[in-house]
């Protein structure tokens, strides 16, 4: 059976906008309102960040949103409680993203079962190694209908990209350049050589480009080389602005899409 991620790519292979936010930021109870508001504004896929005290792959913006979220009291049990009825309100594909340690403490197996029960479609655990996934967890993901999303970078060797492609069944997260999240040095994310190299490999999974996508221009550039793009830090900065959550979200998403049809 296809999960919502796979259905999404089948229906809409181009121009996807995926948005990441940290659960528990700016306020503890914002999780569900943010999800519903993003859907209303035409976002295609949502990554719900589970905050961790030591987010190694993240820049200052997500470090700070994580710190605030933890201070606000966000935990995995709390997040699961917030998402208890989410599928009665929206069918947008939902991915949980976070570091392995909090998931380990919750219990990996218990975590997957619970996520599946709630209607979560996929997980991104950047520090779960491919080898451990294949050895210990792949079956568990599949039993629970969860796609495990892997990252690749311009430095990932072709052989390993093929291996990742063979073991995943959602999409491939193409990290735009060698960097932690939130880097916006330079307007351009067009690492054309790398994107085209990956596109030329004939992979079975679609790709989405993330890291450094922060405005209409970078979003459009990324969409020209992949099925879509992921925005994280720039969205979190927008959430932190003065004004209501609703306004901040719609202003930001409109600024990304501009005159495009969502």
């Amino acid at each position, binding site marked *: 059976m296809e999960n919502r991620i796979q259905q999404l790519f089948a229906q809409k292979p181009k121009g996807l906008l995926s948005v990441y936010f940290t659960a528990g930021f700016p306020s503890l109870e914002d999780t569900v309102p943010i999800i519903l508001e993003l859907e209303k504004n035409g976002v295609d896929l949502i990554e719900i960040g589970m905050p*961790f*005290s*030591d987010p*190694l*792959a993240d*820049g200052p913006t997500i*470090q700070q949103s994580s*710190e605030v979220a*933890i201070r606000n009291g966000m*935990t*995995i*049990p709390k997040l699961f409680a917030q998402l208890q009825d989410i599928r009665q309100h929206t069918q947008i594909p939902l991915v949980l993203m976070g*570091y*392995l*340690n*909090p*998931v*380990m*403490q*919750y219990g990996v197996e218990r975590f997957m079962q619970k996520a599946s029960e709630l209607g979560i479609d996929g997980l991104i655990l*950047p*520090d*779960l*190694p491919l*080898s*451990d996934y294949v050895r210990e967890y792949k079956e568990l993901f599949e039993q629970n209908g969860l796609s495990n999303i*892997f*990252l*690749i*970078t311009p*430095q*990932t*060797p072709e052989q*390993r990209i093929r291996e990742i492609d063979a073991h995943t069944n959602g999409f491939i997260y193409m*990290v735009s350049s*060698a*960097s*932690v999240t939130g*880097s916006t040095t330079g307007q351009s994310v067009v690492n054309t050589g790398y994107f085209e190299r990956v596109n030329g490999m004939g992979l079975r999974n679609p790709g989405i480009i993330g890291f450094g996508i922060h405005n209409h221009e970078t979003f459009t550039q990324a969409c020209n080389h992949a099925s879509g793009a992921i925005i994280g830090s720039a969205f979190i900065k927008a959430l932190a602005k003065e004004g209501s959550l609703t306004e901040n979200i719609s202003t930001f998403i409109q600024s990304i899409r501009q005159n495009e049809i969502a």
Partner: protein
Amino acid sequence: MKYSVDENGFYGKFGGAYVPEMLFPNVEELRENYLKIMAEPDFQEEMQSLLRDYVGRPTPLYFAKRLSEKYNTNIYLKREDLNHTGAHKINNTIGQILLAKRLGKTRIIAETGAGQHGVATATVCALMNLECIVYMGEVDIERQAPNVARMNMLGATVVPAASGSKTLKDATNEAIRDWINNPEDTYYIIGSVVGPHPYPDMVARFQAVISEEMKAQLLEKTGSENPDYVVACVGGGSNAAGAFYHYLDTPEVKLVAVEAAGLGIDSGESAATSVLGKEGIIHGSRTLLMQTEDGQVTEPYSISAGLDYPGVGPLHAHLHQSGRAIFESITDEEALQAVLELTRLEGIIPALETAHALAAIGRLGAKPEEVVVINLSGRGDKDLATYLDRFNFDGK
């Protein structure tokens, strides 16, 4: 029981390489090359000659007569404090800088707590004419000011880590992020037996020179290569790994790892990972780690910047769980008393980290005929401000 790392980078169930994909190529490059490069004759030759002529090895094994009398046993001090730059850390930085050069890297990064690893890294970078960036927690920059000055003088850039507890854990996070941002020209010299495989094994091998020398020196002085006890302090665990290395498979030698209890195990202000930690993942390694029920890493505390770390290397997690090593924890106050004791009995001012190992002597129950080796990991110059502040020398 096996104490060396297996082909997947594990010590029992601890270790591995839990790194985001961005770091995979770097870690993989190192994993594929470290043993090969370390085995090359010209690498060994260059390393041995630097260790001898530049670092000052072998370091002496000194029979501490007055300390032995006080504890009614036979105490030897392995004088890592007499290394160039004042601690064991340079054994590892010499090895890693030679490796970095052979991998063609031109930019060196490091984390530091007490500043000893930062100084040792800045030193070898000056020697090899390589750019050097050292991440150091803001709290540590303050409490280890002399080492910050030394790094600056050596031409390194010291970058303050302002997140979290602003200590070693956070400096390590920043160094890892730098490596993600600079994957091609940069080599990360980790300062302890922590981090993703192959670092714990590689650093242990570079520090193993400590126990290698110890064995020969003990044979000469006592007639046996094997002491009854080897005692070392544990932050990440590199000096302990080096002091234990050649004794791991000799069960009659008792290995004693000493952690920092801070203000006391139950005070909430502690860094005694073996007591307070649970299995988890920190800095790319599955190990024991101080954390909340929800898996958030806890901010540790110790007066000693070099022991102020919420994790422990995976080898030590394995030694703890298997019972091969005995773990002790020593409070700030006990460590300070041990500083004064060694200073007044033997005329040696130890580093605060090392003082934790010294403070455990009284707990060993060593018999009069037994032999105890304390790994004297570093000297106390960097801690003088703390000592002057804590001790009242008027009239004493």
